[in-house]
């Protein structure tokens, strides 16, 4: 069924049940996302896609469109909220883009550019986080984890369907964990997929280095916004 909604005042016909984030992209309105993966169950963890729906702030990836919805994406206040959420992630973890293998392919970095972030308004916390390099093929760089939960939910052992990645502890004590035995069973292809699924440089494929030169990396040749709008980002 087709429903009529507005996004930033623009009248739009959309298929009922499609999520706001997809409908917006189809109509040329970019909403930043970090945990969202098209076609997969919505995670709703990063909140970076927050928009204003009929006067209430909601995560656009979690909300299906309904008849008559009025959605404000680019109003000043909501735009600043999204920016603040990205800034929170930069100050919570330890993100040093220049030395990161994922630079140029990192969704957090690319989104930082899109929301015009210069520096985090929140104090940088410099929390010590320990690297886990016990697996043969994966380097788990916890400094960069943003707890999006993509790896936790979507990467499974092919044989047993068990979780390879998991979260330990809660709140500020939470950390991302890797089951070394299961990780060592992962095929090269699966490792590559997991590393690619990670929006930041937390899951690093040990066999791959800085293989693409600066200026030719994923989001350098085409921005995350352009990719999201043409539906090729995720």
């Amino acid at each position, binding site marked *: 069924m087709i429903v009529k909604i507005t996004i930033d005042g623009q009248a739009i016909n959309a298929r009922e049940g499609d999520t706001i984030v997809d409908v917006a992209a189809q109509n040329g309105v970019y909403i930043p996302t970090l945990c969202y993966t098209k076609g997969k169950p*919505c*995670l*709703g*963890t*990063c*909140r*970076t896609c*927050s928009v204003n729906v009929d006067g209430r*702030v909601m*995560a656009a990836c*979690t*909300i*299906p469109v309904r008849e008559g919805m009025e959605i404000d994406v680019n109003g000043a206040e909501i735009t600043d*909220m999204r920016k*603040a*959420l990205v800034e*929170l*992630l930069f*100050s*919570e973890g330890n993100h040093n883009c220049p030395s990161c293998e994922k630079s140029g392919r990192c969704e957090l970095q690319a989104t930082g550019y899109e929301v015009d972030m210069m520096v985090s*308004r*929140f*104090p940088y*916390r410099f929390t010590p986080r320990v690297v886990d390099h016990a697996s043969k093929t994966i380097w788990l760089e916890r400094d960069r984890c*943003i*707890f999006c*939960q993509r790896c936790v939910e979507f990467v499974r*052992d092919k044989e*047993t*369907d*068990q*979780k*390879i990645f*998991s*979260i*330990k*502890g*809660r*709140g*500020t*004590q*939470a950390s991302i*964990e*890797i*089951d070394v035995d*299961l990780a060592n069973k992962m095929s090269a292809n699966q490792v590559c997929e997991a590393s690619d699924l990670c929006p930041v440089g937390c899951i690093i494929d040990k066999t791959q280095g800085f293989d693409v030169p600066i200026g030719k990396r994923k989001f350098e040749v085409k921005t995350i916004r352009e990719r999201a709008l043409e539906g090729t980002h995720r």
Partner: protein
Amino acid sequence: MNKKIQVLLEKYNSDKTRLMDMLWDVQNQQGYISEEAVTSLAEGLNMSPLDIRETLSFYHFFKDRPFGQHKIYLCNTVIAKMGNYEEVRATLEQETNTSFGNVDDSGTFGLGDANCIGLSDQEPAMMVDHVVFTKLTAEKVINVISQLKQGKTAVEIANPEGADSKYSAYINAMVAENIRTESKVMFKAGRDYKAIQKACLDKHPEQVIMTITESNLKGRGGAGFPTGLKWKMGHDAEGAEKYVICNADEGEPGTFKDRVLLSHSPKDVLLGMIAAAYAIGSRHGILYLRAEYWYLKDYLQQQIQDFRDEGLLGKQILGTAFEFDIRIQMGAGAYVCGDETALIESCEGKRGTPRVKPPYPIQQGYLGMPTSVNNVETLAIASRIVEEGSAWFSAMGTDESTGTRLLSVSGDCDKPGIYEIEWGTTLNEVLSMIGAVNAKYVQISGPAGDSLSVSKDGERKFCYSDLSCNGSLMVFDNTRDILGIVRDYTEFFVEESCGICVPCRAGGVDLQHKMERIIDGRGCQQDLDEIIQWSKLLKGTSRCGLGTAAPNPILATLDKFPEIYQEKLIEQKGPLLPSFNMEEAMSAHDLAYKHLVQEDAE
């Protein structure tokens, strides 16, 4: 595989949704959940060991290393700290020969902090191995610890008469009920449950729903969702199974009414669950009981058994085709599980992480099936409405907020305890009822709720359109340090954040740090302005009620008592915030230089 674990797996049919129960069984048998136990459980449930740890590490009371033969948790809420808390705490450390967060050398005592354990009317209070000790004094602590050292169990000490844990004498040996008002709706004595249920089953489920709808009963957990509408949606929802869950995860600091309802009128609650089940067409009920109320477990189990024996639960109830039974699910210490979707996740053996909504539980809840989650008080009231009719109920209270509500009263007043008030009662009326003479500040609905100034809000009414109190009412007189209370509440939300979403997990910490800066007298107006802006971010973008409520203590007290904030602010001179310490910042550079350059060179 470990033999004991094998027995456990058989007991629960290797059903991973029962992981919470299995972890409790392991801990109760072995004192903690060992690496070996985790590996065996993982093997038996086809999960990775780390997947087991996801659940295990989420809950405050699960321990993956030895935490003493006796696990002692002292409640550390604002209310607990109003009395002789510090003395009790110091005595505990002295007598057990260890410090909080640790175990003594002999491995006998583990000391831990606990958030509200539902005993705010009799603090200081502590949990020891699933039982509680209230109104603690140094002498009482010395006595309890020395008896434990002599080899007595906590149960033997708390319950010297040896009352059976299946009966109320056992509970009454430990805690006082403190019901201070005459019964209006709740706590009615001498009810004929069989007759009431018979009358209920004689009606069509839709008639039951209609009665509840007409009574205008709203959920007493806090959100105030119309109960009749929830049941109607549950009735209309499609599902191979449907579930009724009683939310007895009463974690909001200052609340203890559900504890008293469950100990004084448990069958009211069970009957409410049965009515809900009949209304929506459910065969399975779960009573989710917080671990802090472990001492109610056997008693409630017996109450359920009584109902089974009388034919009010089980198959072919009262000779009809209606079938329904209830199991108790123990929590393990997580405030966030009060959120109905987090509670459902916990019932499924997982981390208590609130789900993304929609879908709502009434559409897809426990095991993906339509689930009606109702508060203890809501269910108890529903059982009374089913008995007396909607007109009887809606004659009480106001037009929009019908009936009564229970208040759990604590803090600076003569008579803390449980009060049943009709909606429409004013704050001043309540204060006079409870004997609060010098009250200045009242926190209603716990830290997640609202802060009231007695001089400004005294004539406001308790009702859904004004003071929609969830039952917690904490009173503070003019000698109390309001900012200190706010600091405590803000820290509480950081501690209890599940961490699933960014604003609550990360933003809560920044809010806490800013608040500390203000309290320490290092903050300026800009800091205060940023607190307000960041609060908006948390309120707007957090995934569940915990994150959206986390800034409430600050915002509400700032609104009611702006002067106490203003007094703390210092003037900003120049472009830097006054809290910026140049010397400290430079010393960090010196330290880094020493580590990275000088030591390398050497």
